[in-house]
């Protein structure tokens, strides 16, 4: 069946270090992946996306890597800042349905 899951529920990093948040998905038909950031009491906020015809995409301080062979997705945050503290979700979708299937979430804690 479909599932998107995360390896680590909580990640604690030192301010200024790089963060890597991982996600596994099981639906090989998924062709579009999104990372969302959710701060307390707020809705998911788009960070970066990637289509299945790519294996890497970079944004400002963030990079998403997609490994279709092992169905793995990661989010890298460079020079992590206190404002990056939040819960991060990966989500997947495909052409047959625009609904998003979310992973369980990873809480990122940034230590000053």
């Amino acid at each position, binding site marked *: 069946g479909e599932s998107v899951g995360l390896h680590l529920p909580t990640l604690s990093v030192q301010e200024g270090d790089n963060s890597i948040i991982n996600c596994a998905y099981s639906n090989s038909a998924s062709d579009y992946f999104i990372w*969302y950031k959710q701060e307390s009491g707020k*809705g998911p906020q*788009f960070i970066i996306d990637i289509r299945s015809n790519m294996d890497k995409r970079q944004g400002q301080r963030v990079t998403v890597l997609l490994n279709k062979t092992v169905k793995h997705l990661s989010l890298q945050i460079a020079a992590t800042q206190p404002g990056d503290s939040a819960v991060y*979700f990966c989500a997947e979708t495909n052409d047959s349905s*625009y*609904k*998003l*299937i979310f992973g369980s979430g990873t809480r990122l804690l940034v230590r000053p």
Partner: protein
Amino acid sequence: EPEVTQTPSHQVTQMGQEVILRCVPISNHLYFYWYRQILGQKVEFLVSFYNNEISEKSEIFDDQFSVERPDGSNFTLKIRSTKLEDSAMYFCASTRARGYTFGSGTRLTVV
């Protein structure tokens, strides 16, 4: 930047009562969604709406739930007879294709 607006931000209701959660999607978006998030859990798909009809719904979206786009602007989620387990954050989202924008959510508390 365009936003998806949800009201109210917090609603407390008694078990068995009807609630209507309201959303104003982004004006040029075509697809509308409701998701929910039980405290501490992941975001779950409820229903998608396109061309004035439901295009897809999850197992959660049973006969107690309904959606409407009554006036071309608002998009509502109605829960006819709330249960304790309906307590959650409810998020509305809209998109033209795949660029989702989520609202800030309505926290529903059923007592």
